[in-house]
């Protein structure tokens, strides 16, 4: 297994460094038109009239789409709840909702024409935040309950209640009893912000209808799910919808499921020519975002630090349309207990409609929402019991094999080992600095105060484990891998090639993974939930094995040696005596001429059951970090000094790419923790919708020291014992920062930890 475990160079690196990688926005089709969207300027209203007459006469305009062009369709889509119309239908539910689309000969012409579309609204009362949406007489964002979508994996959806479109809850054990017996009870209310994923490439889609067949080029992470939704919307068989995915300029969940594809397909259908819709950043910000959340949590513990009970309830603001809200909600509900042993636990999470832009997936959803809360309460328990914060975790963390949730996969990681490694990297010690109660000389003082924090959590990873792969070997021994993982930047094309190369013992330079085209690439459910190496990679491993089996079969004949006495060497099969045949020779020998191809097929599907959310996850992604941070008590400014994350990956197919994932997630975690927050006006409009007012982490936000420890215990279900990574650091880093800040003397209940919020807390505590 030679390529596997090597930090092989990125297959797409040189292309990208030359500016030659093609993204959807780089594609020009002959006759292509440019789309511009008319966005609603009101937050909740009935559309009483739309007049496009003036706009249709504007220069360069070819077609304008409104709801009346969709009357031959059932125009609702949504993989969890089918609540989203292709374009606003009779009603707008958030400021920014697409009401009409113009297709014109140039982007400038399309943009200009939008201004001539006249829309009249009858405004309705607005429920623009959680409090308003949950109030007794709240206006309903959706008057009718939506039909369930096709691919949420959550089983039967419970009935909606007012603006709550989905709830997830469970209870185990005697919660009241646990709290009654407690020596320490910590409780609090918490707030988590709406955050924008900001992939640098914004959502871009091109749609082209030809003779009843539709081709979409799109910056989408899940082309097969998009194909399914589009086929359903337009009444087409799956094989007449082709989704091609070029390189993505980042995804992070913002391009998961279906986003701009239905609208683009609809306007292209009307225009009769290919149409491109390319979002500007402010448009992508109202296409998808992270759920903001309110949460109440209580933790009960015994005097010896044994955790007894946890009770949590969370409300996730899913905006006007559910998108992946239900799954985010379920994951949040499951993240509330953390990876600990409890006598009793109850958790409820609710997915709430509001008249704001829709929320959807963003890296480490659910875990990022809840981990900082549970972990800060655990640290507070330790403080009150005068216990070391690492020790209380050693005592209560689940061990490998223990049940995380009933009926689901048991824990498959050494969390205690992981958190100890993380803590050591930030200088955690038995010194008085880290053990409570602190010696007086160790209490932070002065203007700049330092603290350390650790955090441990789990993320249900893998989504639906359905993936196919094809590996093809040509008569020169070169290998093509076809698997549906999309290249968002994470390195899929490199890692999948490595896996195939590893199995076949081919030089990596002779193995290429091609981009996804649903017409030719076999089915893969999705790229996200850290599933690609584990699930798609396993399919690739099996497909490559199938090719290897064929090679061995031919080699057995040619070398007159039983397969058990043959072994792979680089690019060839050899026997014990040193005789060998190259891959190319074997393929040509098999077919008897200078042609032919070996095709291997690999399949991954749920091993028992249906692969639903409840039965999973495929594996538990580890979310572990430690942080040392400093706060300037005069201004509230926090500096993250040192961070360490742990990538517990079973087997690192490409160690360098694993570390890179943690580094990226870490900076996103710093943004989410310290300054990223979308602000909404009373009518739900986004106020800070450009990078002038929404701050993204920059070079200056890097901690002075960042370490990533890769842990390989071979305990993953993926190829060579691998399991995925890439999200854990984003959940763990904000939690560790909150804990470090509390250690420095400033406990916080709301993110982001803006300087003003921190400063106000310091005033409250009168500690400066």
């Amino acid at each position, binding site marked *: 297994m030679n390529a596997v475990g090597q930090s092989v160079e990125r297959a797409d690196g040189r292309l990208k460094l030359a500016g030659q990688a093609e993204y959807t926005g780089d594609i020009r089709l002959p006759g292509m038109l440019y789309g511009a969207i008319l966005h609603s300027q009101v937050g909740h209203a009935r559309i009483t009239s739309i007049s496009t007459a003036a706009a249709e006469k504007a220069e360069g305009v070819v077609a304008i789409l409104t709801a009346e062009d969709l009357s031959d369709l059932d125009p609702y889509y949504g993989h969890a709840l089918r609540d989203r119309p292709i374009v606003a239908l009779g009603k707008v539910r958030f400021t920014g909702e697409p009401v009409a689309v113009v297709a014109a000969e140039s982007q*400038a012409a399309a943009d200009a024409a939008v201004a001539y579309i006249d829309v009249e609204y009858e405004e309705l009362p607005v429920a623009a935040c959680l409090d308003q949406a949950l109030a007794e007489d709240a206006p309903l964002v959706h008057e009718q309950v939506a039909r369930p979508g096709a691919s949420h994996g959550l089983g039967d959806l419970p009935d909606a209640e007012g603006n709550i479109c989905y709830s997830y809850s469970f209870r185990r054990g005697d919660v009241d009893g646990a709290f009654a017996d407690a020596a320490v009870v910590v409780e609090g209310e918490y707030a988590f912000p709406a955050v924008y994923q900001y992939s640098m490439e914004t959502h871009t889609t091109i749609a082209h209808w030809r003779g009843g067949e539709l081709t979409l080029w799109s910056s989408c992470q899940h082309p097969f799910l998009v194909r399914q939704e589009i086929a359903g919307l337009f009444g087409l068989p799956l094989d007449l919808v082709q989704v091609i995915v070029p390189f993505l300029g980042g995804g992070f969940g913002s391009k998961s499921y279906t986003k701009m594809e239905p609208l683009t397909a609809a306007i292209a259908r009307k225009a009769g020519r290919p149409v491109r819709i390319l979002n500007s950043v402010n448009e992508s910000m109202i296409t998808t975002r992270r759920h903001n959340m309110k949460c109440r949590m209580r933790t009960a513990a015994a005097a010896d630090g044994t955790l007894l009970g946890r009770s949590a309830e969370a409300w996730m603001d899913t905006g006007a349309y559910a998108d992946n809200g239900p799954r985010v909600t379920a994951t949040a509900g499951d993240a509330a207990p953390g990876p600990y042993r409890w006598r009793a636990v109850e958790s409820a999470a609710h997915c709430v409609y509001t008249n704001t832009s829709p929320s959807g997936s963003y890296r480490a959803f659910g875990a990022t929402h809840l981990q900082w809360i549970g972990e800060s309460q655990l640290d507070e328990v330790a403080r009150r019991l005068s216990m070391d914060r690492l020790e209380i975790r050693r005592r209560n963390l689940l061990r490998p094999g223990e049940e995380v949730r009933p009926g689901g996969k048991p824990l498959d990681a050494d969390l205690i080992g992981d958190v100890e490694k993380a803590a050591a990297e930030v200088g955690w010690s038995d010194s008085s600095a880290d053990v409570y109660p602190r010696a007086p000389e160790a209490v932070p003082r002065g203007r700049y105060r330092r603290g350390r924090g650790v955090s441990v959590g789990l993320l249900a990873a893998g989504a639906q484990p359905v993936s196919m792969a094809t590996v093809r070997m040509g008569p020169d021994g070169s290998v093509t891998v076809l698997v549906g993982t999309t290249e968002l930047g994470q390195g899929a094309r490199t890692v999948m090639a490595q896996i195939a190369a590893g199995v076949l013992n081919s030089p990596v330079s002779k193995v290429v993974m091609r981009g996804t085209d649903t017409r030719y690439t076999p089915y893969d459910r999705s790229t996200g939930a850290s599933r690609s190496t584990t699930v798609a990679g396993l399919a690739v491993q099996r497909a490559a094995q199938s090719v290897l089996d064929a090679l061995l079969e031919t080699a057995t004949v040619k070398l007159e040696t039983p397969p058990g006495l043959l072994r792979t060497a680089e690019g060839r099969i050899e026997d014990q005596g040193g005789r060998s045949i190259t891959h190319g020779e074997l393929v040509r020998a098999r077919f008897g001429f200078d042609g032919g191809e070996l095709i291997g097929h690999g399949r991954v599907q749920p091993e028992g059951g249906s692969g639903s959310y409840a039965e999973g996850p495929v594996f538990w992604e580890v979310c572990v970090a430690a942080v040392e941070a400093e706060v300037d008590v005069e201004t509230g400014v926090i500096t993250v000094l040192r961070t360490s994350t742990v990538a517990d990956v079973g087997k690192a197919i490409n160690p360098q790419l694993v570390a890179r994932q943690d580094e990226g997630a870490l900076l996103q975690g710093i943004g989410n923790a310290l300054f990223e927050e979308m602000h909404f006006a009373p009518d739900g409009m986004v106020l800070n919708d450009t990078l*002038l*007012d929404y*701050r993204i982490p920059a070079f200056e936000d890097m901690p002075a020291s960042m370490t990533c420890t890769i842990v390989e215990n071979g305990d993953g279900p993926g190829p060579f014992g691998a399991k995925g990574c890439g999200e854990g650091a984003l959940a763990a880093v904000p939690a560790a920062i909150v804990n470090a800040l509390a250690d420095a003397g400033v406990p916080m209940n709301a993110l982001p930890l*803006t300087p*003003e919020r921190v400063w106000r807390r310091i005033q409250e505590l009168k500690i400066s």
Partner: protein
Amino acid sequence: MKLPPFRLHRPGSVEEASRLLTDLGDDATAYCGGTELLLAMKLGLTTYEHLVDLKRVDGLRGVADGSGGLLRIGAATTHHEVETSAAVRARYPEMSMMISHVANVRVRSVGTLGGNLCFADPHSDPASFLMAVGATLECQRDGEVRRIPAAGFLTGLYETALAPGELLTAVELPARPDRTGLSHRRMKLTERPAVTVTAQITVRGNAVAEARLIVGSVGIMPLAADATALLGATAADFGPRSASCAGQAAADCAPLPDGEASPDYLRHLVTVYAREALEEAFAAAAA
């Protein structure tokens, strides 16, 4: 986000530029680096049918030593040119340092000092810095030249004292008195600064002889804070006097509503940074 259509004019002299601006009136504006103007037009915050490009006008660009130790910076000099000018680094290294933090390397390569001052965005560093050093702004129209003190140049939100058709042609920094310390502090929460404070202190003997404290980015215009309490201060009592001066500056400034920070917090930051700037300026002057 694209630009609306407009016409571009390219005068070769100040007179021609001035005439164009006068004739075209409100439909026209001066244009140079465009890093503020084009952005505002893309965002739909403003629009003009005519842009009068000053980049080909003679004599507007460059840094020169003037008579009597004056430092003269042409209005169309880019931030980067100001930052890296040997003359600026020699006479006002603090200005070079301040400029090096403005926006980013691209805006500094294209944007000009004059453009920054004329756009008069409240969230900005150069204007308040120039007020602290007592700079003068040279303006021209129809061959007439007048000099406006920096403190009088900004008159409101995105408003300057320039008359219709008048151009800012140069910024002049006075000869720096001996034993003068300068300190500029800034804090940003998003892309533009939320608070800037510039302090200039001149020491004679062992006491403060002159002091200026300018608070910028907080209100519509920079505030020339009352620094008279610092006159005569020595090392022994500078601390408490500067704290009191900083507190007064905070009380006197009128914070604009800001999505990211409340007026109370912005005022608090003013007390912190004003104090730091004053202390640093004094230490540099007294050294």
